[in-house]
């Protein structure tokens, strides 16, 4: 059932989480996962736990925790106790729980594989044991044809027969097809959301699977957080990190989230073996992933074969990192990523922020997106704000002070990305209704 909120996790939430209880929560300078790790290391050296920051000796401890972290900033964060209570109450009412990196239910695979970049907390709904169950990650794009959807459903069914979870992102298209395949075949699934966990848990179809104990929804961002590209990309690496092996069903070439997530795994993280679909319609993107080191999916034809595949721990390229204790004060060795030269990141065409906690101002990632992508990033966030109220293309053009065909082109792109919907009579564009997973 719902895991209890530990004192350590309360401290972690105070330091790192936005604790949204409404739209007007003022901005605060939260600690990024990395900043938090630095504090946690220092606490460990002092033989202290995060919970000790909430005790009577806080002022003394904080003066020891520096340098590099302003004690006043930490104190300000730690004094958000009432806000923490209100946020936790809101989550609890919706059956959302929180596990922190020091808790036994925290997904150990993520702690071991992501190291200092591991999210300090996971928000979740459903059977918490699913956090540590591993499984087959299935990824692919939102817009695919029937044949690929059927393929994803079959993969989900196979995982169900092997009694292993499907791990996916819960997005439309391949993600949902694979999860639905698993769930409808009596199996389990873990959806790793990049936003709006709070809304997803009351969606009726999700609710029935959640109550059944077969669907686990996880998110590393605040349950009220809205969509943002950075979170979506940060989420991708968690899908890999939570699984035993990953299958890419399809991917665009050198663009899109699937490509970025897969190449990040293949080139740098190498947590788990990455496979690409090897039957059906050939794909440029998948072929290119092969060149990055992905293996062809061996098309296991029985649950036993799939289990063999999942239980062989060899990651693509180099061996997977050995699992180690998820204790926050003794985290795993830093992942390979932090030692990589910037050139390695530059090969990722879309920005891949490393942190999963969103609102913290961070230095710009070293990867330099194309000029066109930079424009589109701005357009995307501006339009998404604008379209919280449904508007016509003409109104959008007017607001952005561009010609209508330009506005139309951008709106079409946002529709293609699954972020915006077009509603008829009168034609209005609005944010995609979130988020039935199915």
């Amino acid at each position, binding site marked *: 059932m719902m895991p209890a909120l530990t004192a350590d996790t309360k401290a972690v939430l105070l330091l790192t989480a936005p604790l949204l209880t*409404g739209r007007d929560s003022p901005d605060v300078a939260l600690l990024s996962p990395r900043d938090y790790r630095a504090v946690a290391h220092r606490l460990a050296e002092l033989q202290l736990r995060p919970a000790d920051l909430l005790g009577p000796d806080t002022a003394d401890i904080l003066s020891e925790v520096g340098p590099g972290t302003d004690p006043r900033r930490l104190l300000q964060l730690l004094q958000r106790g009432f*806000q923490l209570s209100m946020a936790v109450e809101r989550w609890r009412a919706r059956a959302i729980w929180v596990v922190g990196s020091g808790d036994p239910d925290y997904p150990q695979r993520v702690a071991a594989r992501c190291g200092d970049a591991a999210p300090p907390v996971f928000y979740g709904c459903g059977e918490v044991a699913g956090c540590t169950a591993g499984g087959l990650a299935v990824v692919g794009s939102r817009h695919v044809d029937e044949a690929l959807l059927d393929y994803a459903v079959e993969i989900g069914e196979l995982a169900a027969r092997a009694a292993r979870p499907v791990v996916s992102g819960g997005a439309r298209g391949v993600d949902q097809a694979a999860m639905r395949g698993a769930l409808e075949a009596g199996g389990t699934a873990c959806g790793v959301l990049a936003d709006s966990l709070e809304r997803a848990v009351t969606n009726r179809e999700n609710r029935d699977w959640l109550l059944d104990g077969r669907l686990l929804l996880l998110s590393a961002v605040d349950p009220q957080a809205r969509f943002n590209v950075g979170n979506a990309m940060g989420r991708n690496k968690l899908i890999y990190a939570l699984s035993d092996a990953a299958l890419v069903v399809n991917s665009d070439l050198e663009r899109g989230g699937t490509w970025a997530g897969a190449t990040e795994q293949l080139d740098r993280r190498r947590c788990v073996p990455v496979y690409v679909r090897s039957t059906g319609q050939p794909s440029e993107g998948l072929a290119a992933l092969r060149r990055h080191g992905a293996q062809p999916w061996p098309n296991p034809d029985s649950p036993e074969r799939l289990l063999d595949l999942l239980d062989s721990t060899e990651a693509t390229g180099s061996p997977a990192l050995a699992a180690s204790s998820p204790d926050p004060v003794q985290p795993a060795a830093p992942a390979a990523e932090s030692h990589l030269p910037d050139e390695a990141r530059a090969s990722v065409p879309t920005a891949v922020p490393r942190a999963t906690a969103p609102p913290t101002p961070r230095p710009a990632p070293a990867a330099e997106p194309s000029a066109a992508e930079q424009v589109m990033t701005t357009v995307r966030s501006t339009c998404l704000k604008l379209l919280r109220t449904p508007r016509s293309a003409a109104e959008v053009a007017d607001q952005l002070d561009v010609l209508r065909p330009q506005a139309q082109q951008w709106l079409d792109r946002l529709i293609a990305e699954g972020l915006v919907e077009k509603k008829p009579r009168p034609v209005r564009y609005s944010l995609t209704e979130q988020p039935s997973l199915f």
Partner: protein
Amino acid sequence: MEYSAHRALELLRLGSGIPDAVFREGQEQAIQQVIGGSHRWLVVQRTGWGKSFVYFIAAKLLREAGAGPALLVSPLLSLMRNQIRAAERMGVRAATINSDNETAWPDVEQQLAAGQVDVLLIAPERLANGRFREQVLARIAAQVALLVIDEAHCISDWGHDFRPHYRLIERIVGTLPPNLRLLATTATANQRVMDDLQQVLGPGLRVLRGDLARPSLCLQTIALPSRAARLAWIAEQLQTLPGHGIIYVLTVRDAQQVAGWLQSRGFNVRAYTGRTGEDRPELEQALLDNQVHALVATTALGMGFDKPDLAFVMHYQAPGSVVSYYQQVGRAGRALDSAYGVLLHGEGDRAITDWFIGSAFPSPEEVAAVLGALEEAPAGLTIPELLPRVNLSKQRIEKTVELLSLESPAPIVKVGAAWQLTASRLSPAFWARIERLTDLRRREQQQMQDYLALPFGEHMRFLIAALDGDPSGITAPRLPALPSSVCPGLVRQADDFLHRTALPIQPRLRWPDGGLPSGLRGAIAEDRRAAEGRALCVWRDAGWGELVRRGKYQDGRFAEELAQACAEMVRAWNPQPAPTWVTAVPSLRHPMLVPELAQRVADLLGLRYLAALQKADGRPEQKTMQNSAQQARNVDGSLVATAAPLPRGPVLLVDDLVDSRWTMTVAAALLRQHGSGPVWPVALANTGNDE
């Protein structure tokens, strides 16, 4: 945080307006340790002791040291005006947000955003309100430096009064990290409640508990079975008792009846209930200023009311628990040498407290009905959308929804305006808790019976023991017992009064939301409406109530006195234009009961009786329809006019019980449509269940 004893004392003197005031025992230590964050405090002291000085001075000192505002949660905001005035003298900027002052919210929000509020006072319900949480609280939640929980005994299931939203407070307090400053206050807590609070408020809790005994109070219980006798007793004693006081009653109806009786005897008293609304501050002030002899009040005149020279507290009926009783009676004689606390009891009291206990929580059927309707609606349902789908009164639906939503995890949650099922099922602990609380209420009721049986002089000891206080220093009452006899002549007059009550039946002006199957919707046209009518009594009321019940369910014929009383009532009422004929609401189940009564009333008034209406088909009894939407649908199309055209004159429309008024509304529309003049509804009893 540096604590300045000098500044604290200065604030106390400013606030109290007493230049040489000093702290009471424990007050200063509590302030110092709460702001220092070293300990949380539970202050158990009677109203008037100065609990508010602890939190207002603590809040002010915190602000002066640069900390954020304090948040004070109290169900008694309306009674805190005196305390707020004291706070203002100290320079504490206090702002209140509750459901009554929504227009002031934007101002308060602005002040909050600008950091101009030192203490924000809210009612517990606010914490469950989405708009308040998201738009107001979210802005300051990160800065709250001190949380104050008033009436903290409500956190415990063992507390004597149950306030659903304290469940939410219990969880919020339980989740608070230990570094958040917390102060809890209450006037009454027995050992069991204090143990619970210790658990919730955390280790290191310090308790400041005052003496419970009230030597100035002279307590007495008097058995007077009939209500008429009790009314007579109160009227008789009020003539001689010195000073001003409160007369407590169990229901709103009782408050009106008792106040009406005493006013008819020339006493300057006023009724004070939850429905008194905006006049409440004015009435409280009138009593504080001795402008009224007494208020006749329900428990709506609550815990925070503080009049040090209150000379008596009488009870017209026995309340459900001795702790509630202690709180109510304890308002008398705070600054007097002696005061009376007299509890009258008799027939019917037990039935009322039984009803309170029985209806305190939703039944399994009610919960199943609400959850079932939500199960059918994946997008959720609003309360108005639930009404036609669930045959429960609006009040019961709201209560059910509220209690379910306060569970954790909750089986339902409000998303926008609609209630939706969540990914949690209702825990069996929900029912276990209801059972536990109901058992507790039963034991409290029994304890009250024991109290009623005590001989004069033993009452205070019993109350203190019930509160786990120290009964050793209790002394004998300082006043002689009041007589338990009552003048028979006055009892007869009270009895007459109880039989002389005519209540207005307000006409309905609109068809129900969403319209009726027959197509009627919106406003009811003026020439189709009923006029304002009269009901002889309230169903089950003292006076005529028993005769009505017997006629309807036992004898199958209404007593002659009722027909006469009806005719008397119509004569005294004298509606204009005067009715020229009489008709009755028909029934298939009891075809003769009401027409026969209407016939007799017509004869007594010398008017013509005509059976103008007929039942079109058999429907479930109207009383089985639990809310307005259901009732209106049940009546729609069920009546037809028999003779057309009808007499053109104004008509008296007779029924036995009036409940939702939909039957009267539909019947009146039919009569008007078929040519009658204005329709004057008359009923024997009003069930009082109307929404």
